[in-house]
């Protein structure tokens, strides 16, 4: 008894102890988390390990930060900048200078109310404080805050409506500004001051600004700019229309551009055009056009009906890996949204594990009444919009009625094909898009198990059937059929990654369910009982077609086919057949009378009927389990196929032993990790730039390694592995000191070992047995198998005296480069393979006799920033003779005093000066649009140069580049507004940097007045039309409207009288004077 008591006490003790010990770790684990007001790393309000909390600040154990007063999130207002930030933790905000926290989470407070901030002619939406803050950076600029305007577009339009004009200073310079910006006083009789609605190039203003000199982007449109850099009107290749007689033209009065329009710069962003530099289109003037923002030939795949083809700017569409919909999404799949944005196709992944799914619709057809499934499969014509939507599938299981299932706040689907046993509900509520599950861990078990099914099938048999040994199914007979099994699987996989189904690479596995008790005959679900991969891949499964096309349930029609009734009928028929057929045949030969047989039959039937009826129940069970990845590992490497992002979910779906490594790095990849693999990585030498001698488990560098020459070692492993090395043998992998190049799991390993000069020092050589180095390497694969034996690499430093002179690897500028005329000195830079001293001379002589030195970096650590591994020396080479090749002899000596025995011959070619041989126009000029023409010669490239021009004598950098240049002939059309004397300054530069300047002066006579046609008569005798003009002109005519140059010439060009033969009913006449001014007339003779 005592023993029993003792055992009981021990048992109770153990139970209590174990219970506490089981509970205790959880408690410890929970206590480790806390909301830290400030972490040790300086971050506010992080829910993290309590050990990370800064002990000088507050800590709230086991409470999420959102529930702690000092970390509540709200609005943080920056009083200095005037900016508002939502969702900021209180402590974070209050820790910052000039910041005020407010509990209103969305910043609906007075300080954060936006308004329209107008600073001069610029408008943007901001808070009043921010507006003041910005305005303070522009002293003198007028600031107005329109608190009533809270719409950004309205705000911007406010500035667009500001009156602009030409602001002329007292010195005659002009700037296009808003009226408020122009501080010049308008005085009577003077043009200085603000001239509303006028362009600076307006002829009446007599400024030096020539109109329409260049084009550039302003906002979304292309604008003309005058020679003073002032914006003019929207670009139109018809300059006259765009010039608008020198007045500001409103946008709605300008031309309308289509994408890539070479003639018009009035872009329309919403229609897919935006100002940009022209690439494949040549605008008539300038370099800017309304660029096409649409996308062409976008990515296409069969499962995504709206993929491929051309897309409009802003259009978005869904990309699917394969079929989408209830029970169809394949394991590892992810939905994506593609967007055409500013001419680029941008692809965005929806959240992994199908926590988001992609839906799309045609704009304007938001309420088509199409079923939710249509959105996945329907091809829309027109502009589509797509979005990644949160997959709200969690509540589907709780719905037992269709109405509940189809509520708007759920992403569920009422499936009639579930096997509910009695089918009284008429269907089951399943996720519209099955969520992805972590099918490889236990968290998926409970989700899949929701779809497990048990079906009790009832049978009975009467006396007859008992005699035949047969049972008649009376209830839930459908559960004995294959279709029950197949439908149970459909329901199962509709819950998530459960049951028998495909992965994203089309591999089918059928281990995701079990039938422990009894199952319909025929074994496991065969691939022929499921949709084929090709139909899944193209979203062309019969079920989906039926669903989409007829809105009827394909499965339902199949499932409800009363097969059990048919089979019952068949059995009955067979019973009759047996009775009327073989039995009679069998009994007939015995020779009894018919009466006997009749009596015998009656008695037999009575006896059978008197047998007691029997019944039984059989339980069919379908256990829905997480999907199982394929045994094969061949697809692991396909994880990043098509450029898709390889994630843990996708990787694990590709094979049982696929595992993601190097997560977060550019080497993130899916590799095979065989748990039963006990083999460590197999190391082999990679391709090296020197000879090696392979040993049993390693290699030896053949020959001696020069100091200052980095040794680059390459190793390969037969599987992705991490490698480390040590200078001592037999160290365990984990305590090896150095990484072999990288810490990642890779197959190609690369290590660069710099060999410092110190390696040749006597004491080092002694310590290393004459400069012999052994590296002992071990690698570890992703299954944690490490090499037990060291892989060794042996190399020896050249311990003898360094006898190799340095080598000049590069020069700046390159050897034989042209240099500008007139330079008697020129800065050059040498890059050497080791730290050295260098000298130069004009004649080839010994290093010691060379007169001039380079400035060289002294230390082996001073490696060039831009040319890693090389060492800098600089100098200024002098005594450069003009207009010829100059040769310099350079020699260098390294730190071991190894001197180059041959000079490095370095040449610089001094080029002849660049010359301007001609500048036009000169003297008297009678044209409306004179052309500045420059011819260059000589220089570095026979006169090829780039030229600029200006009306003032400025440096080349401040000149406008000529329209046609980078040649020997350069031209620029000028657009002076009035007659007078003009001086233009020109500068040109060639490849060597030769700069040449010049100027031209000309007296321009222009007339803006068009010639007048004042005398018109017809000579009926000669059948000739006569006209007279007020000045010398050339005239042309036609019987319809035409542009000058395309008409028929009238007689006597450059005179005042012109004739044309009569014959037309109407004459359109165009006369042009020497200033290109034109006059038109329409004559009905």
């Amino acid at each position, binding site marked *: 008894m005592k023993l029993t008591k003792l055992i009981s006490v021990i048992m109770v003790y153990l139970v209590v102890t174990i219970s506490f010990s089981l509970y205790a770790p959880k408690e410890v684990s929970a206590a480790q988390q806390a909301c830290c007001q400030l972490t040790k790393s300086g971050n506010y309000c992080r829910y993290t390990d309590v050990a990370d909390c800064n002990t000088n600040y507050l800590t709230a154990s086991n409470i999420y930060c959102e529930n702690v007063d000092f970390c509540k999130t709200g609005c943080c207002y920056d009083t200095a900048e005037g900016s508002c930030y939502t*969702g900021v933790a209180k402590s*974070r905000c209050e820790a910052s200078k000039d910041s005020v926290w407010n509990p209103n989470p969305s910043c609906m407070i007075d300080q954060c109310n936006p308004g329209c901030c107008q600073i001069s002619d610029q408008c943007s939406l901001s808070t009043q404080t921010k507006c003041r803050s910005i305005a303070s950076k522009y002293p003198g600029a007028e600031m107005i805050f329109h608190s009533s305007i809270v719409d950004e577009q309205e705000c911007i339009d406010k500035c667009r409506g500001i009156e602009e004009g030409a602001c002329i200073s007292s010195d005659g310079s002009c700037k296009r500004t808003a009226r408020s910006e122009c501080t010049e006083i308008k005085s009577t009789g003077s043009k200085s001051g603000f001239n509303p609605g006028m362009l600076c190039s307006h002829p009446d203003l007599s400024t030096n600004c020539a109109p329409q000199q260049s084009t550039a982007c302003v906002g979304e449109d292309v604008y003309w700019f005058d020679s003073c850099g002032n914006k003019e009107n929207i670009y139109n290749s018809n300059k006259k229309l765009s010039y608008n007689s020198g007045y500001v033209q409103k946008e709605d009065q300008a031309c309308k551009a289509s994408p890539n329009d070479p003639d018009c710069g009035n872009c329309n962003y919403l229609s897919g055009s935006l100002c940009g530099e022209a690439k494949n289109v040549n605008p008539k003037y300038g370099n800017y056009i309304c660029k096409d923002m649409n996308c062409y030939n976008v990515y296409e795949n069969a499962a995504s009906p709206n993929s491929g083809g051309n897309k409009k700017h802003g259009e978005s569409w869904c990309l699917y890996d394969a079929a989408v919909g209830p029970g169809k999404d394949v394991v590892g799949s992810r939905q994506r949204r593609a*967007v055409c944005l500013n001419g680029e196709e*941008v692809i*965005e*992944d929806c*959240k992994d*594990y199908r926590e988001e799914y992609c839906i799309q619709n045609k704009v304007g057809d938001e309420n088509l009444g199409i079923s939710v499934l249509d959105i996945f499969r329907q091809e829309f014509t027109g502009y589509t919009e797509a979005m990644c939507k949160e997959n709200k599938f969690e509540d589907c299981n709780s719905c037992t009625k269709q109405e509940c299932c189809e509520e708007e706040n759920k992403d569920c689907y009422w499936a009639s094909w579930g096997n509910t046993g009695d089918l009284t509900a008429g269907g089951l509520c399943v996720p519209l898009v099955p969520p992805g599950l972590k099918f490889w861990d236990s968290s998926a078990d409970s989700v899949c198990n929701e779809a497990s099914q048990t079906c009790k099938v009832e049978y009975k048999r009467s006396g007859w059937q008992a005699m035949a040994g047969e049972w008649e199914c009376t209830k839930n007979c459908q559960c004995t059929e294959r279709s029950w099994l197949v439908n149970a699987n459909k329901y199962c996989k509709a819950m998530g990654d459960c049951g028998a189904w495909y992965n994203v690479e089309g591999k089918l596995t059928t281990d995701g369910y079990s039938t422990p008790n009894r199952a319909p005959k025929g074994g496991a679900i065969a691939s022929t009982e499921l949709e084929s991969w090709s139909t899944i891949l193209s979203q062309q499964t019969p079920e989906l077609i039926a669903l989409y096309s007829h809105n009827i349930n394909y499965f339902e029609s199949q499932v409800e086919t009363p097969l059990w009734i048919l089979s019952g009928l068949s059995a009955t028929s067979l019973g009759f057949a047996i009775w009327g057929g073989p039995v009679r045949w069998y009994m007939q030969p015995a020779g009894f009378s018919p009466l006997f047989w009749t009596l015998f039959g009656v008695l037999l039937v009575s006896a059978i009927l008197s047998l007691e009826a029997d019944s039984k129940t059989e339980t069919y069970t379908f256990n829905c389990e997480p999907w199982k990845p394929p045994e094969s590992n061949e697809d692991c490497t396909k994880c990043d196929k098509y450029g898709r992002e390889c994630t843990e979910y996708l990787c694990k779906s590709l094979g049982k032993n696929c595992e993601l490594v190097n997560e977060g790095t550019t080497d993130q990849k899916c590799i095979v990790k065989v748990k039963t693999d006990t083999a460590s990585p197999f190391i082999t030498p990679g391709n090296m730039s020197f000879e090696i001698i392979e040993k049993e488990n390693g290699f030896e560098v053949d020959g001696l390694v020069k100091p200052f020459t980095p040794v680059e070692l390459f190793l390969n492993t037969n599987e992705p592995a991490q490698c480390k090395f040590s200078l001592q043998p037999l160290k365990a992998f984990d305590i090896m000191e150095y990484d072999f190049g990288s810490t990642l799991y890779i197959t190609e390993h690369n290590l660069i070992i710099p060999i410092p000069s110190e390696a040749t020092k006597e004491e080092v050589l002694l310590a290393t047995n004459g400069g012999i180095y052994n590296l002992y390497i071990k690698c570890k694969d992703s299954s944690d198998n490490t090499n037990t034996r060291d892989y060794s690499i042996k190399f020896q430093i050249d311990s003898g005296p360094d006898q190799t002179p340095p080598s000049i690897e590069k020069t700046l500028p390159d050897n034989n480069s042209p240099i500008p005329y007139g330079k008697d000195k020129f800065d050059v830079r040498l890059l050497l393979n080791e730290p050295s001293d260098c000298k130069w001379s004009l004649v080839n002589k010994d290093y010691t006799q060379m007169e001039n030195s380079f400035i060289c970096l002294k230390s082996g650590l001073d490696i060039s920033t831009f040319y890693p591994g090389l060492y800098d020396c600089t100098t200024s080479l002098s005594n450069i003779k003009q207009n010829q090749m100059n040769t310099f002899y350079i020699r260098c000596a390294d730190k071991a005093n190894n001197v180059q025995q041959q000079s490095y011959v370095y040449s610089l070619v001094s080029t002849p000066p660049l010359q301007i041989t001609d500048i036009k126009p000169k003297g008297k000029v009678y044209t409306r649009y004179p052309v500045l023409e420059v011819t260059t010669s000589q220089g570095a490239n026979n006169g090829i140069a780039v030229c600029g021009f200006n009306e003032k004598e400025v440096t080349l950098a401040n000149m406008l580049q000529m329209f046609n240049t980078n040649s020997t002939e350069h031209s620029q059309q000028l657009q002076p507004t009035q007659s007078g004397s003009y001086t233009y300054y020109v500068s040109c530069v060639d490849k060597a940097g030769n700069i040449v300047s010049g100027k031209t002066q000309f007296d321009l006579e222009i007339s803006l007045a068009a010639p007048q046609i004042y005398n018109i008569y017809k000579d009926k005798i000669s059948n000739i039309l006569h006209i007279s003009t007020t000045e010398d002109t050339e005239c042309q005519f036609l019987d319809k409207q035409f542009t000058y140059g395309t008409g028929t010439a009238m007689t006597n060009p450059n005179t005042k009288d012109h004739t044309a033969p009569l014959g037309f009913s109407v004459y359109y006449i165009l006369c042009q004077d020497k200033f290109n001014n034109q006059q038109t007339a329409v004559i009905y003779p």
Partner: protein
Amino acid sequence: MSKRGQATIIIFLAIIIVVVIVLLFFLVKSKVYIGGTNVENLRRELDPIAKHIEKCLYDLTTQYAAAMGQQGGYLEQTENTYLLYNSQKISFLCFNTPKIIGCSNRYLRLNDMESQLKLAIISKLDSCININSFKKSGFSITPGNKDLQIDISPDNIITSLSYPIKIKKDNSEVEVSTFSKAVPLPLGRLYSAAMDIVNLESLTDKFDTVVYSVIKSQLTGKPYIIQKLQPYPNKVYILKIKDIPEEANPYVFQFSIEGEGK
């Protein structure tokens, strides 16, 4: 001398004084002490120094602004404050709030970025600026203390370095005190868009890149490209202005939003 003559002399002297004051006023920025030798020559000596300093400002600003954009507004990142994505440490600008919709805004301000840039650039200026290489015999160059100002505007980063440098030869002395450089990078513009995204994410967990990009592009005439990536369970936003002219490596500002996984 008559009173009228005295008055004339006084007026004449007054005019000279005014002219001298005006001249001095205009020479405040580049003080010129007119001595015995050619001041213009001294000024010319300053030009390459100024260019050298401005190049340093440009190179360092470009380098650190690029890193700042790649790393989500922070040059130095501490543990658990960034997402390692494509081997890049991308800062979380909004931290996960467990079981609650939205996230906790990290409160990255424009002046925080300016301060970081200032610290980073000024720490490298000494090694970049090499005044000694401009020294010549007969000239003495005396640099003063450096003070750097960074201003991030929508499309430019403006660096202004206050760094008085005097060049002296014989009795002539020239001084230049400020150097400034505008680096055309849209850090400010992209930061502003990033804050719009973070503000909305902090409240709703949602942000539609297309609608925002299209509207913003239309309003500003700048072609915004905003891409949302979702390395589970986090989000990464990559923002850029499509370059005009297009460049191979446009300036990018990318940041991450911390998410909550299964």
